[in-house]
């Protein structure tokens, strides 16, 4: 506990330690900023003097494209509306996929017979390159929201399912026996022991799962849609509008990072019982 250390240590040493941490942080961030500037500048210069900006575009053109999208809108309505559509699809697929993955994962994880019966089917479905299902879903559900939610769902489901399954299988037998002796019914064992034990596994999978949900939504839109960031990218491709593709990528990246931050906050809240990781310094 950090307070406990602070109490026993002289004030001066604590302030030295704090300022060392701050110095390090400033150093790390300034080098990161320098790397970004270096990368963008070399791209800009290269595209101005040596390589063809028609194919490779350049940061200033991408920036102008972004400004255009956010001030004048895109050819498919305002950029905000397009972002909203993509997020709706991704979040919808994410929530449904995660829920189904958790429920089925825990169910199969706690029932060896069911797991043995289902194993080959799950392996087979998992082996299908699921992204091609986007085409199938387009035929089934049309150009609207549903086909993208379905694509995102199928990608999210497997990511979450395998982790929930593993998490439910590896619950400490001691904890279950202890709860049973203390008087827990089967349902209580499930809700108070199995689900919390599996939670750290499940939460770990949610990070990559949201990435999959965005991929599902965007690929679904590239295959065919009426609105959305994937459609913007597909249309830019059709028009040989390289800056448009980059601009679409950037918007999606920012959305993904925001979602990642929200998930990390949720994880911290739910797992506050866990001992702090041994090296929190080098988190990537």
């Amino acid at each position: 506990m950090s307070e406990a250390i602070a109490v026993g240590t002289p004030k001066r040493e604590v302030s030295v330690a704090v300022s060392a941490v701050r110095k390090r942080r400033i150093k790390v961030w300034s080098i990161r900023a320098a790397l970004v500037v270096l990368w963008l500048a070399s791209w800009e210069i290269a595209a101005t003097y040596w390589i063809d900006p028609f194919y490779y575009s350049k940061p200033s053109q991408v920036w102008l494209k972004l400004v255009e999208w956010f001030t004048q809108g895109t050819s498919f309505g305002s950029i905000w509306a397009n972002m909203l559509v993509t997020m709706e699809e991704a979040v919808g697929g994410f929530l449904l996929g995660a829920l189904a993955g958790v429920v089925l994962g825990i169910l199969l994880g706690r029932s060896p017979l069911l797991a043995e019966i289902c194993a080959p089917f799950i392996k087979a479905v998992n082996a299908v390159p699921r992204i091609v299902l986007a085409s199938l879903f387009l035929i089934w559900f049309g150009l609207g929201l549903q086909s993208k939610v379905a694509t995102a769902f199928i990608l999210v489901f497997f990511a979450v399912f395998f982790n929930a399954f593993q998490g439910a299988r590896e619950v400490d037998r001691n904890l279950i026996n202890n709860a049973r002796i203390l008087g827990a019914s089967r349902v209580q064992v499930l809700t108070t022991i199995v689900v919390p034990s599996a939670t750290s596994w499940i939460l770990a999978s949610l990070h990559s799962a949201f990435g999959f949900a965005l991929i599902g939504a965007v690929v679904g839109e590239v295959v065919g849609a009426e609105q959305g960031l994937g459609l913007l990218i597909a249309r830019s491709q059709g028009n040989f509008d390289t800056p448009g593709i980059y601009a679409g990528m950037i918007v999606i990246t920012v959305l993904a990072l925001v979602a990642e931050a929200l998930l990390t906050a949720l994880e911290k809240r739910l797992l506050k019982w866990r001992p702090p990781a041994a090296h929190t310094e080098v988190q990537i």
Partner: protein
Amino acid sequence: MTAPVIELRSATKRFRSGSGGVHTAVQSLSMTVRPGEFVAVVGPTGCGKSTTLSLVSGLEPPSEGQALVRGENVSGIPEGVGYMFQNDAVMPWRTVLDNVAAGPRFRGASKAEARKRAEIWVDKVGLGKFGGYYPHQLSGGMRKRVALAQTLVNEPEILLMDEPFSALDVQTRALMQDELLRLWSGTGAAVIFVTHDLDEAIALADKVVVMTASPATVKATFEVGLDRPRDVEEIRMTPEFQDVYREIWQSLKEEVDKTRERSSAGV
């Protein structure tokens, strides 16, 4: 003489071992425990002492023979049984208070009621200031106290303990033994305390049961006539304690030697 609260009648427990063979953990074992009696079970390491407890607790049914609690065949977990496991079994995602409140909650007490009872027991085991801490913030000895409170809050009539203090350092262990005797006295609970430490067995128990090398069965039973209340550190120094120790060790030594011979012969 009062009727036994726990009785094993030539109970045998076999497990299927990993390689497809059959491993007999306990062989026609018979023993009785009266209400309020503190019985220690000692035997060589790995002889099947813990299996005895799982038979009484209903976690495992016997392959042959009978396990009776209050004169009735054990099927499922009998009412009024508490079990302290060798390894930590506290829930790491719950605070000390919520861990202790788990038992009453499982048994249908309201949240407020469960909390109130948990607070009393958290105080009794000396963790009053740590109610809001998570297990990972506590030392090994403190976690054992949580486990003890978690078990005792249900006010068990039968207390099963599987080497609960074996992972602790010597000083903490002595402290926890005293604590256990203090909390147990006056509850009237019958205790089966499994250990491989003869010192611990004699210091705590009214009766010491010596088990044979695997497969385990009762070799001999010894009465420990030491007065209560006891101070486990002090009592070890008394000549009475040492007499009892010598007597039981004679019996236990043969079994320990057998186990050693077997393990050195690679069986």
